[in-house]
């Protein structure tokens, strides 16, 4: 079954052609095309009209790469929530158009669940094995930081979430404070490799003491707003940046010199963010006796997170799966892949499919064949 997966929830116009849920025949994102300047070199951005400009060239390139045509499609999957409504509507309308023209099903896919599926795209055997479940999945990106519990028989629920900033945002905002480029995650990852992560003790949001059985209502929740402010005050106190005030934002002035001490600060900041992610994920895995811990979403590309999470999860005796980098960032393959399972379970949508801004209450996942 060949499924077209369309993703337009945020910055990327992403499209993939996926055979039977796992065989990715093409996986194209608009920023790749922009680099090759095939449509005037417009840098993809949030505006719905940019998605509108990009979607046709991206779909056409995907078909070319896969050596397939629109007549070969069996279904269309599309992100319909959560995200920016005007942006989502571009993908949803486009998907409905193809489905109507070809007389094939359209399936609305939750972006958040699709990120989790992304970790299993190249691991179908793991997904179909009942022993993989229960799964605790950390979905960590610029827009999300949440822990989901997935059970083999099809239930799913969010067991922890950020109360303020997402982890990716904590990196982006630190990068902004330090006059580094956007997105902040990759550059902080790189600089941190030259610094001492233990040099400065930045606070871990909503930390739970080791072996504590409680931790209150926020035991599995995250907070990254405090660490961001701590960084700001640390830099100010040590004379790296001008004190903040309401009129002069951080856009002016020269970037601070990245001497060894500042590299230590950056590495320590990253460590505080990573440690919060690792600690809460491990707590959730223990609370729900997870067989497998999955990490996915854009921040799952962070090398320190991958390293520390792998070590901690393995130490806890559970299996660890981290999505491949191309399936961490927003992509169409995770949409087309997950849509396949909805079609197999006859859970398809009709043309009343609408876009939703919020992360709706998630309570189910498709039952994957073999895990029933």
């Amino acid at each position: 079954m060949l499924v077209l997966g369309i993703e337009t929830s945020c910055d990327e116009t992403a499209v993939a052609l996926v055979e039977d849920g796992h065989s990715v025949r093409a996986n194209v994102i608009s920023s790749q095309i922009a680099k090759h300047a095939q449509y005037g070199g417009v840098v993809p951005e949030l505006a719905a009209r940019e998605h509108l400009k990009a979607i046709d060239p991206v779909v056409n390139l995907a078909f070319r790469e896969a050596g397939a045509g629109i007549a070969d499609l069996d279904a269309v999957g599309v992100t319909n929530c959560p995200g920016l409504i005007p942006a989502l509507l571009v993908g949803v309308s486009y998907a409905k158009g193809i489905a109507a023209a070809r007389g094939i099903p359209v399936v609305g896919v939750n972006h958040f669940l699709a990120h989790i599926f992304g970790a299993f795209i190249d691991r179908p055997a793991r997904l179909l094995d009942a022993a993989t479940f229960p799964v605790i999945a950390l979905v960590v990106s610029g827009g999300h930081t949440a822990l989901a519990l997935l059970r083999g028989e099809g239930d799913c629920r969010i067991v922890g979430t950020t109360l303020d900033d997402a982890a990716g945002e904590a990196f982006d905002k630190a990068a902004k404070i330090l006059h580094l480029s956007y997105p902040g995650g990759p550059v902080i990852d790189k600089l941190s490799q030259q610094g001492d992560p233990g040099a400065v003790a930045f606070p871990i949001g909503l930390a739970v003491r080791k072996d504590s059985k409680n931790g209150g209502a926020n035991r599995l929740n995250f907070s990254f707003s405090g660490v961001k402010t701590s960084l700001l005050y640390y830099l100010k106190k040590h004379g790296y940046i001008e004190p903040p005030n309401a009129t002069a934002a951080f856009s002016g002035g020269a970037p601070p010199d990245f001497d060894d001490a500042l590299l230590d600060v950056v590495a320590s900041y990253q460590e505080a963010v990573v440690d919060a992610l690792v600690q809460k994920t491990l707590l959730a895995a223990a609370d729900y006796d997870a067989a497998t811990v999955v990490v996915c979403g854009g921040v799952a590309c962070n090398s320190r997170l991958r390293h520390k999470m792998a070590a901690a999860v393995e130490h806890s005796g559970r299996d660890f799966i981290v999505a491949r980098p191309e399936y961490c960032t927003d992509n169409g393959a995770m949409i087309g892949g997950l849509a396949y399972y909805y079609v197999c379970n006859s859970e398809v949508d009709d043309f009343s499919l609408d876009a939703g801004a919020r992360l709706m209450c998630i309570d189910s996942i498709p039952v994957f064949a073999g895990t029933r």
Partner: protein
Amino acid sequence: MVSINPESTETFGFQLGQKLNGGDIVALHGDLGSGKTVLARGIARGLGVTEPVASPTYTIVQEYTGRQWALYHIDMYRIDTVEAAEAFGLEYYLSDQSAIVVVEWAERIAPLLADENVIRVYLSHVEQDVRKIEMVTIPASGAE
């Protein structure tokens, strides 16, 4: 006023939120870490929103349903020009009379928020947890 900690910033927002009506726009000005999202959360609570209110930086807009009004919590951090805000479709949100609109990083799109009825709140760092909060324009519609 001077807010001594995040809780008192949230309380300030809560009290403001209780006085707002559909069509009201609150423009929040202030640097990173000055408490804009905390204040917005307070406004949401004052409007009867019970679900978690997190930063909308990445998603640009978060929509909530309050007791009587919807709330659009908007963040212009990643949209730094008026042109980009217009391309994004900000007008759609600002013109919704059945919702309250709270805009973080409002200074970036000042020309779009020039209306005199816009409630402007300025947050600034004093020290560690302490913030100064200044409000200009009192909500005209429905405020006591």
